C-alpha cells in the first residue's frame, strides 16, 4: 500500500516536471509495480491516462521535403503528361482553381523529366532520380492522393504541421508529446533539424514546431549543427563542469531553504528542471559524437560527423530515436523547383535519397522500424504545367494532388495507395487530406485523433480540427 502511494507521488512529480523518466528507469519502475507492459502515457508526463488502442508505433521520424517536391518526377508516373508535353493545359483541369506564380500566364503541359521504373517484388513505380528509394520499394507505402488547402509555402507548412493556416496552433510533434509524454530523461521529446542543398532554400519558421496554446514544454527544440546544438547548452567560458555542478547544487539548496517559508510547489518543479538542464548539458555532447558508430553504419549513410547535411541529420535521427525522443523532424529546405527542375532535383535527390534509405535500413537492422513511423514528404506537390523560371523548365506550387511515402510503424509495406487524374492534377482516387494523414499518424501511436483535445478560448481543439479520417487501408 505504501509503495503504491509513493509510486503515485513519483508519477505526479514526473508528470509535472516536463520530461519523464528514461526508458530503463520507467521499465524498472513499472516492473517493480508489476505493471510492465501496460504503457500509460500519464506515467511519463503525457496527458492521456491510457492509450485509446494498442499502438503500432512509439515514435515518428518525419523527413520533411520542404518546398514541395514534384510528385510527377518521383512517385506519380503519368504517361499522358509525356504525350501532351508542350500542349496547352486543358481548361477543364484548371478553371476556377487557385494558382500561385503562374497567375495570368498561359498554361502548358510539361511532361515528366525523369524515367520511372517498376521496382522490387511489389513493382511500385518510382523515378530514376531516387535510385536508393527504388531499392526499398518493398519497404515503403506510397500515398499518391495527398491534397492540401494552401498554395503558398508558409501557410502550407503551417497546415502540414498544425492542421490549419492560422498561426498559434500546436504542431503535430507537440500534440504527440502532449498526449504521450516523453520517454527520454535528458533530451526534449520533440527535436527538429534542418539541412540545405539545392535551389535557394525556402525559409522555414519556428512556428512549424511551436507548441501553440499547449504548454511550452511540448514545443519542438531545434538541434543545430555544426555549432552548439541547443541554445546555451555549453558552460560559459571559464566555468568547468565541476563549478557548474556546484552552482546548480547551491541554487537547489538555497531554493529549498526558501521553500520552507514560501511553500510554493513550483520551486520543486524548478529544481527538477535544473537537474534536467544539467543532464542535458552532459548528454548532448555525447549525442553529437559519432565516433562510437561502427564504420559500416557511417558508410551506410555516407557521413563522418555531424556536419549539418541531411545524411548526418538522418543518423542523428536514429540516435535520437534510440534515446527515446518521440517526434523527430528533419527539414530539407530546397525542393522549390520553379525552374531548372532537373538540375535542382538532381541535387536534392543526391542529398536525401541515400540517407533516407540508410535510415530505413538502419532502423530495420536494429529492429526499430517496427515501432518507428518514418514519413517522407513536403507541404505540397508541383503543377503538371510548365513554369519558365530559369534556363530550363520548372513547375509551380500545386495543392490538389501530391505524393508522400511512409515506412514502418505498422503500415503495409510495398503498397501504393490512391491516385491522381491522368495528368496528375487532382487526387481523384481515394484522396487523403492532410487531416487524414494526421489522423493516421495519431492512430498508429495509439491515439484516437478525436479524443486528444485541449481546451483553449472555450473550445476543445484537436490536431485534426473537425476533420480527419484514418486511412484504414494502409494499416498493416
Amino acid at each position, binding site marked *: 500500500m505504501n509503495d503504491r502511494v509513493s509510486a503515485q507521488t513519483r508519477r505526479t512529480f514526473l508528470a509535472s516536471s516536463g520530461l519523464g523518466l528514461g526508458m530503463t528507469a520507467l521499465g524498472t519502475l513499472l516492473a517493480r509495480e508489476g505493471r510492465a507492459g501496460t504503457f500509460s502515457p500519464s506515467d511519463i508526463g503525457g496527458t492521456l491516462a491510457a492509450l485509446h488502442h494498442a499502438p503500432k508505433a512509439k515514435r515518428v521520424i518525419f523527413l520533411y521535403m520542404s518546398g514541395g517536391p514534384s510528385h510527377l518526377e518521383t512517385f506519380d508516373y503519368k504517361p499522358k503528361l509525356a504525350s501532351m508535353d508542350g500542349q496547352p493545359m486543358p481548361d477543364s483541369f484548371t478553371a476556377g482553381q487557385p494558382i*500561385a506564380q503562374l497567375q495570368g500566364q498561359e498554361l502548358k503541359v510539361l511532361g515528366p523529366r525523369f524515367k520511372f521504373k517498376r521496382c522490387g517484388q511489389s513493382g511500385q513505380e518510382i523515378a530514376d532520380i531516387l535510385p536508393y528509394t527504388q531499392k526499398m520499394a518493398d519497404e515503403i507505402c506510397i500515398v499518391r492522393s495527398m491534397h492540401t488547402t494552401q498554395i503558398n509555402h508558409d501557410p502550407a507548412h503551417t497546415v502540414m504541421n498544425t492542421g490549419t493556416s492560422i498561426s498559434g496552433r500546436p504542431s503535430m510533434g507537440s500534440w504527440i508529446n502532449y498526449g504521450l509524454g516523453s520517454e527520454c530523461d535528458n533530451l526534449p521529446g520533440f527535436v527538429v533539424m534542418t539541412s540545405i542543398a539545392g535551389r535557394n532554400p*525556402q*525559409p522555414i519558421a519556428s512556428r512549424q514546431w511551436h507548441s501553440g496554446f499547449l504548454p511550452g514544454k511540448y514545443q519542438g527544440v531545434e538541434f543545430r549543427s555544426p555549432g552548439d546544438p541547443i541554445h546555451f547548452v555549453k558552460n*560559459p*567560458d571559464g566555468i568547468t563542469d565541476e563549478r557548474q555542478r556546484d552552482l546548480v547544487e547551491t541554487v537547489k539548496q538555497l531554493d529549498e531553504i526558501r521553500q520552507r517559508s514560501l511553500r510554493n510547489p*513550483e520551486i520543486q518543479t524548478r529544481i527538477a*528542471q535544473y537537474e534536467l538542464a544539467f543532464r542535458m548539458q552532459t548528454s548532448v555532447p555525447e549525442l553529437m559524437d559519432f565516433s562510437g558508430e561502427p564504420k559500416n553504419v557511417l558508410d551506410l549513410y555516407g557521413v563522418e560527423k555531424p556536419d549539418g547535411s541531411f545524411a548526418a541529420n538522418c543518423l542523428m535521427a536514429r540516435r535520437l530515436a534510440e534515446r527515446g525522443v518521440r517526434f523527430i523532424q528533419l527539414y530539407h529546405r530546397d525542393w522549390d523547383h520553379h525552374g531548372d527542375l532537373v538540375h535542382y532535383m538532381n541535387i536534392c535527390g543526391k542529398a536525401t535519397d541515400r540517407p533516407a534509405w540508410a535510415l530505413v535500413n538502419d532502423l530495420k537492422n536494429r529492429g526499430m522500424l517496427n515501432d518507428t513511423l518514418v514519413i517522407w514528404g513536403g507541404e505540397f506537390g508541383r503543377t503538371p504545367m510548365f513554369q519558365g523560371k530559369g534556363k530550363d523548365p520548372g513547375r509551380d506550387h500545386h495543392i490538389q494532388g501530391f505524393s508522400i511515402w511512409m515506412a514502418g510503424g505498422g503500415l503495409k509495406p510495398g503498397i501504393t495507395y490512391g491516385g491522381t487524374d491522368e495528368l496528375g492534377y487532382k487526387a481523384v482516387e481515394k484522396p487523403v487530406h492532410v487531416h487524414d494523414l494526421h489522423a493516421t499518424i495519431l492512430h498508429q501511436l495509439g491515439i484516437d485523433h478525436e479524443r486528444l483535445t485541449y481546451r483553449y*478560448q472555450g473550445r476543445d481543439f484537436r490536431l485534426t480540427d473537425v476533420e480527419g479520417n484514418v486511412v484504414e487501408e494502409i494499416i498493416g
Partner: protein
Amino acid sequence: MSLNSGDGMVKIAAKSLILLVGTLASASLSAGEVLSFNRDVRPILSDRCFACHGPDSGKREADLRLDRRENAIASAIIPGDPESSELIHRIRSSDAEKMMPPADSHKLRLTDEQVAVMERWIKEGARYEPHWSFIPPRRSAVPESSGIDARDPIDAYIGFRQTERGIGFHREADPGTLARRISFDLVGLPPEPFEVDRFERSERPDRLERWADELLGSPAFGERLTSYWFDLVRFADTVGYHGDQEHAISPYRDYVLDALNANMPFDQFTREQLAGDLLPKASVDQKIATAYNRVLQTSHEGGVQPKEYLLKYAADRVRNLSSVWLGLTMGCAECHDHKFDDLTQKDFYQLAAFFADIEEKGDFAGAGNVTPTRRDPEIVVLSRTDREMISQKNDQFDALQSRLTQLLGAFASNDWSELSKKNGEILELRRRMVHLHEEIVRVSKNKTRVMVTASRARRPVRILSRGDWMDESGPMVEPAIPAAFRSMKDPLGSDGTRLDLANWLSSPTNPLTSRVLVNRLWYLFYGAGLAKNLEDVGSQGDRPTHPELLDALSLDLMESGWDIKGIIRRLVNSTTYRQSSLPTKEAIRIDPNNELWTRQGRSRRPAEMIRDAALATSGLLVREIGGRSVRPYQPAGYYAHLNFPQRQYVEDTGPYLFRRSIYTHWQRQYLHPMLKAFDAPSREECTAQRQPSNTPAASLVLLNDPEFVEAARFFGLRVIREGPANDAQRLAWMVRQAFGRSFDEDELTLLIEYVARNRASFREELESARKLVRIGRAPSPADIDDVEWATWTAVARVLFNLDEMITRY
C-alpha cells in the same frame, strides 16, 4: 454580522444581501438557493449542447436550438414539467440511440448533479437570462462594511464574500515583498535598495499610495504597460509570414509609450489607433497611431494571390479587434456561425467591412526580397522627443538671431568702438548658432518610416461560404456591429467607418470593452482575472468570481473618462492587493483556487522583467525611453532559416545592448531565444495571458546565456567596488541589492562556503577566472583582481538563478 477569521479579527457588516445571489461560481447548489441560469445552467448547455444545438445554423442538428428559449420550449423543454421534457429523457438515457450528448460527440455525459440542476431549472420554469457579458454592466450597492479594513470599494466587495465564507483578509505582505511587488507591477523593474529602505522605514499610513503615485508618474510605467498592450495588438518588427522581413513600426511603440505615460483616456487611445487618420486635422501622432491597423502578419512571398491575402488580412483584423476590445473569439465565424455565442458569420464579415477601406496596395507591390520591406502607405516621421528638441532648438536659434541682428545694427550706425567691444559676443553668438544649426540638421536626420493607415474607396465585402475566397456567390455586406449588440443605442453613422467602430467600442452601451479591460488589469495586479479566462468572456468563458465588482469597476472606469492610471491606482492600493501571497492552511481549505481572493496571486514574471531585472541589478541597464528597436546578444546562426533575403543578425553595440526588453527586436518567426524560453509570445495573434512553462531551456538561459553571465560579472564588480569588505557583509549587500531582503543563517553559511570554494578554485586556475570576467562586450576595468571578480561573479550567478529572480510573490 461579524465573523472571526484565522488571520486576525476581521469584521464586516454587510447589508447588501443581494450579493448572495449569483456569486458562488464554484459552490454546488443547495436546496434553498435560488437557481441562476447564467451561473448554473448556461455552462452545462454551452459545453455539452450548443455545439450541435446552438447558434451555428450550419451545424444545427434536428433543427433544435437550445440557446434561445422560444426555440427550446417549442420542442425539447416543457417549462414546469421536467418529466415530460424530451431534453431530460435524453440526458438521463443510456440508450446509445437516444442518449445526449451522443457517444460520437466525445462530449462528457452530464453528472447526476448536472442532471438535477437541469431538472430543477425546468421545474422552476426554464427561465433564460442573457449571457452576463452581453448585457451592460449594472451598478449594485457597495456592500456596506464596518470593521473591515476596506481602503476601497474593491475591499468591500471582496471582504463581504470572504466573511460570508468564514474567512477574512490575509495579513499584509512584509514591506520588502510588497515593495518588490508594486515596483515590478507598475514599472516592470526591481525597486532600488534606497526605495526599499525608505518604504520600510516610513511610518506614514499612506506610504504605499505615495509610492504608487511616484511609480505611476515614472516613464518606466509606460514601458511596463506597453509591453502588455503589445501582446494584445501583436506588435512585432517583422511581417510574420514567409520571408519574415522587417517592416517600419518603431514610431508606433513611441506613440503607445507616450499615450500610456500621458494617461491618454482609453477611448481616445482606441479611436486614434483604429481611426486616427479619420480624425479632423489628424496630428502626426494620430497618424502614427494607425500603424495598429498595419501591424498584422503579411506575406511578401512571390505568387500570393491578392484576393486570398486580402481575406487573410481582413480575418486577422477581425480576430484581433474582437480579442483586444471585446474579449470574444470571432475567428471561427470566418467559416461558420459561432458555436457557443450569439455571433454569426454575417457579423464577422460586417466587422471585416469596417476595415475594407484600408489601403493595402503597398503590401502587394512586390518590394523585392529586401529587408526592411516597404509596405506603403508609410510616412517619414521624427520621434516626439526629436520633434520637441528641434522646436526647442529653433526657438533658441531665433533668440540668438534677434540678438545678433541687434548687435549688427551697430554696423549701420558705424559705431566702431561699440562694435569692437562686442566683437567677442558676436563671434560667440555665431558659434552657438552654427552649433544649433548643425544639431537641428543632425536630429532631423533621425527620421524613421512608419506604416500608417490611409483610407480608400471601400472594397466590396461579401459573406464567403466556408471562408472560401474563391466563392463569389455569397451576399454583399456593409459595415455593422454584431447583431447581438445592435438592439442597443447604435452610434454608427450611416456610412460605417472605422471611427464609428471605435466610437462604438468605447460607448457606454458597449457591454464588453470596459469589462474586458478591467478584467485584464486585475490580472496584471492580482495574478489572475476576476473572470479567469482573459481571452474569452463569451459563453464558454468563465463567469467572474465577483460579477458586481467587475461591473462596478467597469462603470467607474467609463465614468472617470477612461482614466487608466486612476483605475490602476485603486487596484494597487487596496487591502486585497496588499495581502501576503503565502497561503494559509485555512485559506487552502476554504478557498483552494483563490476565488475569494484570500491571498495575492503568485506567478512567473514575464520574460522582459527577468532580463531587465538582471540588467538593473548589474548596473548595466540603460534607461533611455523610446526609440528604435535594438538587437541584444543572440546566438550566432539563429536566423539561418530565414530567407528572401538571407539574414545576418547584427548585434548592437554600446548602450543599445543594455536597453529594456520592450525595445528588443521582435522577429515573429524566430523570437529572441531568451524571450522565447520564458514564454513570450511570437505575436502572430493576440495574447491576453502568457502560458508560463518551467523547462530546462529556461534554466539554460539563466545559467549560460552570455547576457546573464555578463550581468552577473557586473553585479560582482559592483559588490567589489561599492559593497563592504568582508565576505558575509558582501553577501548581505548583494541580496539586499538583488531581492531587497537579507539572508538567514543557513543561507549565509552555505554561501560563505561557496565563496571560499570558488575563490580557491579560481586561484588555482587563473586563466579560467580571466575568461569568465571577460564575457560580454561591456568594457572591463583593468584594476580588478580576476580571482576576486570571478568569485563574486559566481555568487551573482547563484542569485540570478534563484526562484526569486523569476517569481512574483
